[in-house]
């Protein structure tokens, strides 16, 4: 019985992390896509756009990383 509950908890953690990764996945897609559009329009701004893109990705990624930590805690 104990083993079943532990197995259930880790399975739920896996599903939870999968759900938590959806939002950041979409968000990072939007960030990177818009950065590519901006770079195509103004190639001379490439450096600034790339830095800002990485920043945006880093902030968006935070939710997925919290989900990852919760997966270990659970």
């Amino acid at each position, binding site marked *: 019985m104990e083993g079943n509950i532990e197995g259930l908890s880790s399975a739920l953690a896996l599903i939870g992390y999968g759900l938590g990764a959806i939002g950041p996945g979409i968000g990072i897609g939007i960030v990177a896509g818009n950065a590519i559009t901006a770079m195509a329009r103004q190639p001379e701004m490439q*450096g600034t756009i790339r*830095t800002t893109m990485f920043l945006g990705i880093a902030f968006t990624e*935070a939710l997925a*990383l919290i989900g990852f*930590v919760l997966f270990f805690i659970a």
Partner: protein
Amino acid sequence: MTGMILASECDVANEVICAPAQVNDLFEFDTWFTVGGLNFTKTTFLILLAAVIVVVLVYLGLKDRRLVPSKFNVIIEGLVGFVRDGIARDVIGPEGSKYLPYLLSIFLFILVGNLFEVTPLISFPITSRMAIPAFLSLVTYFIFTIVGFGRNKFRYLIDTVWPKTVPVGMRPLVGLIELVSVFVLRPLTLAVRLFANMMAGHLMLTLLLGSAVIFLAAIPEIGARGLIGVPWLAFGLFIFMFEIVVSILQAYIFTLLSAVYIESSIHFEH
């Protein structure tokens, strides 16, 4: 070493991929010797090795400044220039040069530590042990909080909790989110981002390439079934290329975010 762990537990006749019973087996190593209660392992050795490599590279690269630099000098100067112009001055501004030594140190240390993952005979990224990203992110945390309090005194804390630019009704909510985000989530995500990327990479590489080696080596025993190893090898080599990019990118992102956090403490108004 990890290959041997896999081989002893892998049932090549029935499994399709070899996974160790305990994931920790891939990240924990035997103690070589103990000094004053501290266990000296492969990880400890690699940390010291990474530090020595960084110091030696920078020292040799910048020792003699000739009119016509050698190829090696150009590479090291390029790295230093990249961190100075691309990260420190670009993000922090003119006074970014003050933080260049710290940013350059963590960039090179994390870069070397990450690239250990794809170095033959070592193939273990030291940043996949949580202690190292956690320590580095705590150093960044102390720097940006101390700079924030030093520059803005207690306005740093008060304006974070009670932001003046937000309508009054929203201030408690935004303040709470800002408080948690700045003082808890920033160091946490900074450390976990590096740790998670490197751990996942090491896990994928070890499982894929380890399985490939074990299955291909077992062809005499299990016959054509051992050809399962071929797709694992192909996929593993693809991931190997990918991990080189990830190693460099994660070192860059860690340094960039450290610079951004320091900048947000210096120019606190916005």
